[in-house]
């Protein structure tokens, strides 16, 4: 019999926008300029550029923490230093928001989440240093890497299951995906990543005490399918880069994995719930909504996020949740569904206090 159950609440989500916004048109112009120096034959270059035009059709923006020269990183050090700079910028932006309305009690655990690189000291230690007295000296401080797009909500699941002694937790999800850009490669999955992702940062404060506007966490679950290699980091020219095991079958495989997970996890079709769905491409989002029986209107927060920020990996779901929690009334059920490398599907939810 479980005796250490403790109710937990999302007390706040901190969702700063970090970096410089780039529209699809600006991306296309920057890529066209970079393609002049790309060393591949002309027919391959033309076909690849047409593919990129397809990926960048319409109005969409993403944020980039590297800045204007993001397609001209040239060495391992360029990428690794960009990762460190982006993390510092993101930690500072999240910390600014925490300090504007600090919790009444110190954090006794801090978890850092990122999948793009490595650094010492880690995210948790850097955040604790930045936040000073808001983090107890005895606080648990750990980073969680290699989790992909579901890492943030799976960390929320982990926190929900921690011992009751840990009462006040901060999670920082920081995904500077621009650091993975390999502009010297003609690999299509690489360019799919470049066009799909944006940089992002978010923090979550989880407490065992409810508060105004909090979300009482309900059942949280996750599932791992067999498509372990479907989404992965490939070794790029100078660093890691985004990779897909089988690009041509990617969408079909993702949809299949998500549907298997939804059956196994018994994802509820609660018509009254507000939904946050990870924006892993609009195609997946729309087809999932049909399978879930969701009204198109319920997808708007996820679609709007994708339009304004693109896919920020594990950060996106937190930005969408912040928006939904902020717009909901007391008693409103809220659900989330996220999917990504592993292949993991994570779902959960709660009720707005």
């Amino acid at each position, binding site marked *: 019999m479980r005796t250490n159950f403790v109710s937990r609440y999302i007390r706040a989500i901190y969702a700063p926008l970090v970096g410089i916004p780039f529209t699809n048109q600006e991306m296309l112009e920057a890529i066209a300029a970079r393609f002049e120096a790309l060393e591949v034959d002309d027919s391959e270059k033309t*076909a690849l550029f*047409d*593919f990129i*035009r*397809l990926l960048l*059709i*319409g*109005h*969409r923006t993403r944020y980039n923490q590297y800045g204007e020269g993001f397609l001209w990183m040239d060495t391992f050090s360029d990428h690794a230093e960009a990762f460190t700079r982006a993390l510092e910028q993101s930690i500072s932006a999240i910390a600014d928001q925490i300090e504007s309305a600090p919790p009444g009690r110190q954090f006794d655990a801090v978890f850092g989440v990122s999948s793009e690189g490595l650094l010492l000291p880690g995210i948790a230690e850097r955040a604790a240093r930045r936040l000073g007295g808001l983090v107890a000296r005895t606080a648990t401080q750990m980073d969680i890497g290699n989790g992909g797009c579901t890492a943030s909500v799976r960390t929320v699941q982990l926190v929900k299951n921690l011992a009751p002694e840990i009462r006040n937790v901060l999670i920082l999800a920081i995904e500077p995906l621009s650091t993975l850009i390999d502009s010297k490669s003609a690999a*299509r999955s690489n360019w*799919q990543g470049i066009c799909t992702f944006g940089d992002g940062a978010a923090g979550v404060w989880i407490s065992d005490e409810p508060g105004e506007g909090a979300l009482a966490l309900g059942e949280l679950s996750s599932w791992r399918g067999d498509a372990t290699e479907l989404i992965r980091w490939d070794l790029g020219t100078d660093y890691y880069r985004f990779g897909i095991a089988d*690009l*041509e*079958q*990617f*969408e*079909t495989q993702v*949809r299949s994995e998500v549907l298997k997970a939804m059956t196994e996890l018994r994802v509820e079709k609660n018509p009254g719930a507000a939904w946050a769905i990870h924006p892993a491409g*609009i*195609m997946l989002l*729309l*087809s999932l909504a*049909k399978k879930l029986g969701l009204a198109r209107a319920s997808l708007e927060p996820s*679609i709007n996020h994708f339009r304004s920020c693109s896919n920020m990996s594990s950060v996106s779901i937190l930005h969408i949740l912040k928006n939904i929690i902020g717009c909901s009334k007391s008693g409103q059920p809220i659900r989330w569904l996220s999917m990504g490398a592993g292949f993991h599907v994570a779902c959960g939810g709660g009720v707005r206090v």
Partner: protein
Amino acid sequence: MIERKAVLEAIAEFFAENFPNVPRDNIEGMKASDVIQQSLDLVEFVLHLEEKLGLEININTLGEKLITKTFGELADDLVTIGKEA
């Protein structure tokens, strides 16, 4: 087995419902990029074809053909995909 005519009818139906001002007398010679300017519309277009043709379409399989080929050429590709499915 998917018939070419059925593909073209499904394409025409999508444009009649969503882009009624677009002339449909030469649908075979038109390209999606002539009409569709938003990614959401492109996805809706593919989902419509999936539903009408009973076919699972991977956008990456069609790739840039979605914007560089005419609907007539696209219909030929979808007939081939239908045979392989």
